[in-house]
């Protein structure tokens, strides 16, 4: 795992100096602290900071082909590199390293950019082809690894993290549309960012840039797709169970490939328990497992975690996330996420990867993706209940099912069907909209816009996030089953854009820890997407039904039978009834709110008072509070106080010149 950065001269004039690759890379040292290399000529520069996992002894990047006409850098892994390399060797290619990145170089020689389709992995790559005078960037299918880019002063610049672009002098300014997106979806839309002019290569896409040309072209090499409802295959659950087991075993086996030990995250839920069970069974030694415990009992799952660890016989480690630790760590987390948060779970994941790092591990397996691909989330149940209710909109009883889904939300339990109607009955009968499943959630989150300053509100008057999403949805989506539509929306706008970034790559790489996700293996994705919805979600208590059946006999029985607890960190108990930490006191003060200009000072004052004192602090209030605080942190670190932050947070490294 690594950090990458680079630049290409887009103007016709040769000899224009490239941006300072060294300055860029020093912002990414946390991702790759072990060694660094670069390639540069008068048009293009590629730089790489390395964390050695595969080919430890000789994998310094960039890596060239035999005659030095192709140079590649990679952040991430191609898990099927062994098979690909064997084939390439048979066809006469000479390998100089054991690095999986070299596979891409030779594969590209044979197949051109389509070589990327052969890679099963999680990666962000950049490849310079001197013969074709073309720079190619690419990201894995679901966007596990980040890759940002921008153009500035005739240069095309790219990097694993935005801060490296800023270190090259790119102007720093918050983007109003990006802010509206975060305060609706929890993250910018795929391909965007909250910084004006900074974009990200889309998951499953390649991007081409040419020297002397301002034109950038992005092309999809993979699409997330589900079968049409009337063409869905029908096999027995037993057949699916067998297939899931075989595919998941193989996906896990590939992800245990590393020249360093691999550990696993364990939340106490089905998904991570299943992955840990499979991994432990495949390993000749004891697996290290890691988990988070919360001070707030409502969120704590440690009893299940210990139970699993004991039954599997893993070496288990726990980090205690108390309120003080969460408050103290928040600014560092924002330095890494580079996007405001509306919840605090990324803090827990940040502390967890710190613990992993302290134990000397750098690769972790996770259960991420199972909820999205096998129907584990409450929003899927909510969608099905609302569709059921929409068929009899006047029903008194049907809305009661909603309080059953959200049993963990206490306030809902005291409400009668009549009172549930105004909250869950909005847009009830608009079931022919492809994003029906997410309308309520987006509308709820959007209420946080109440905190925006009048100027920002005015500049967003004609901008509607949902309209932007709607035009990007695949045309055939309405032919899919309703659950598949909800899954698609969840995977593209939440898994790829938020979970894999703010709760995944960024907080893991903050401590040089790489997460690997067997459920996101391309063969697992293809398999789960063709399983009919009725085997994923069976009634309100039948989430991930087919996966649960597949887990029987592999994972401990107590966990297989356990219903999902939403995995999240507490907010209310972190801030209620306590003085704010110093940085929050300062950044939420009137002058600071006025200085950043994003929020209305009076609104923030009332919200902060409510966060500290009110016995009732709703979900929307919590999101607004964390959103305001973290936006202020982002503004402070990346805009107002940038020079100082850059100087104190950069870590120097020595780069070896190659080529």
């Amino acid at each position, binding site marked *: 795992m690594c950090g990458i950065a680079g630049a290409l001269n887009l103007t016709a004039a040769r000899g224009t100096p490239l941006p300072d690759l060294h300055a860029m890379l020093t912002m990414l040292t946390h991702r790759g602290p072990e060694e660094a290399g670069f390639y540069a000529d008068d048009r293009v520069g590629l730089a790489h900071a390395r964390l050695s996992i595969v080919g430890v002894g000789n994998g310094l990047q960039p890596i060239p082909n035999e005659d030095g006409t192709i140079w590649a850098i990679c952040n991430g892994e191609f898990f099927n590199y062994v098979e690909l390399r064997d084939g390439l060797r048979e066809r006469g290619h000479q390998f100089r390293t054991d690095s999986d990145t070299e596979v891409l170089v030779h594969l590209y020689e044979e197949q051109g950019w389509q070589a990327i389709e052969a890679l099963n992995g999680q990666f962000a790559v950049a490849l310079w082809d001197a013969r074709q005078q073309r720079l190619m960037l690419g990201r894995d299918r679901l966007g596990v690894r980040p890759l940002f880019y921008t153009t500035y002063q005739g240069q095309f610049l790219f990097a694993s993290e935005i801060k490296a672009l800023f270190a090259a002098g790119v102007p720093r300014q918050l983007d109003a549309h990006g802010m509206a997106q975060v305060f609706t979806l929890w993250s910018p839309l795929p391909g965007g960012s909250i910084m004006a002019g900074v974009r990200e290569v889309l998951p499953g896409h390649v991007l081409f840039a040419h020297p002397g040309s301002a034109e950038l072209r992005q092309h999809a090499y993979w699409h997330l797709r589900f079968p049409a409802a009337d063409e869905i295959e029908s096999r027995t659950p037993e057949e699916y169970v067998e297939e899931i087991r075989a595919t998941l075993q193989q996906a896990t086996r590939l992800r245990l490939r590393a020249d360093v030990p691999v550990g696993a995250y364990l939340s106490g839920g089905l998904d991570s328990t299943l992955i840990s069970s499979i991994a432990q069974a495949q390993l000749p030694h004891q697996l290290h497992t890691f988990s988070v415990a919360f001070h707030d009992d409502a969120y704590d799952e440690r009893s299940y975690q210990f139970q699993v660890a004991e039954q599997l016989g893993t070496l288990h480690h726990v980090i205690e996330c108390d309120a003080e630790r969460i408050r103290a760590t928040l600014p560092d987390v924002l330095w890494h996420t580079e996007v405001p948060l509306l919840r605090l779970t990324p803090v827990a994941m940040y502390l967890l990867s710190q613990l992993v790092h302290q134990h000397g591990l750098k690769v972790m397996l996770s259960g991420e993706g199972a909820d999205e691909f096998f129907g584990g989330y409450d929003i899927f149940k909510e969608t099905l209940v609302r569709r059921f209710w929409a068929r009899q909109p006047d029903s008194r009883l049907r809305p009661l099912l909603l309080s059953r889904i959200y049993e963990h939300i206490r306030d809902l339990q005291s409400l009668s069907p*009549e*009172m549930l109607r105004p909250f869950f009955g909005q847009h009830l009968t608009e079931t022919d909209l492809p994003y029906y499943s997410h309308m309520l959630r987006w509308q709820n989150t959007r209420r946080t816009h109440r905190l925006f300053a009048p100027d920002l509100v005015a500049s967003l008057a004609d901008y509607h996030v949902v309209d932007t999403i709607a035009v990007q949805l695949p045309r055939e989506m309405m032919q899919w089953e309703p659950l598949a539509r909800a899954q698609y929306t969840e995977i593209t706008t939440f898994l790829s854009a938020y979970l894999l970034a703010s709760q995944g790559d960024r907080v893991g790489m903050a401590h040089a820890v790489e997460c690997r996700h067997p459920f996101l293996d391309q063969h697992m994705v293809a398999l789960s997407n063709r399983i009919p919805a009725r085997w994923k979600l069976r009634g309100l208590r039948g989430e991930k039904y087919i996966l649960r059946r597949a887990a029987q006999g592999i994972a401990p029985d107590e966990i297989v039978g356990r219903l999902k607890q939403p995995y999240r960190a507490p907010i209310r108990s972190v801030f209620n009834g306590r003085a704010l930490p110093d940085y929050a006191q300062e950044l939420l003060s009137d002058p600071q709110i006025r200085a950043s200009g994003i929020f209305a000072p009076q609104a923030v004052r009332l919200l902060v008072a409510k966060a500290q004192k009110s016995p009732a602090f709703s979900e929307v209030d919590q999101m607004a509070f964390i959103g305001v605080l973290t936006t202020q942190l982002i503004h402070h670190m990346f805009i107002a106080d940038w020079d100082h932050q850059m100087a104190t947070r950069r870590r120097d490294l020595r780069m070896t010149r190659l080529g």
Partner: protein
Amino acid sequence: MEINERIREFVVENCLFGDTSVDLTDDTALLDSGIIDSTGVIEMVFFISETFGLEVPAEDMLPENFNSIARLSAYIEQRIPVG
């Protein structure tokens, strides 16, 4: 202060965070428009108890009593003991 004014003040400060650009009349739908969410209902019950000394039983938590400032005022007025 009139009952409806006290409710309005609570809604503006607590639910709208002082946003006076929202057109909030006595008849504005509080629930359907999302001005009050499900936690907001509980907050309102707490506010009524603190301010007017009234306990709102679960069976009274209905849109006809909660969906506007006018309805809330009418409900409270009718529950406050005369004299």
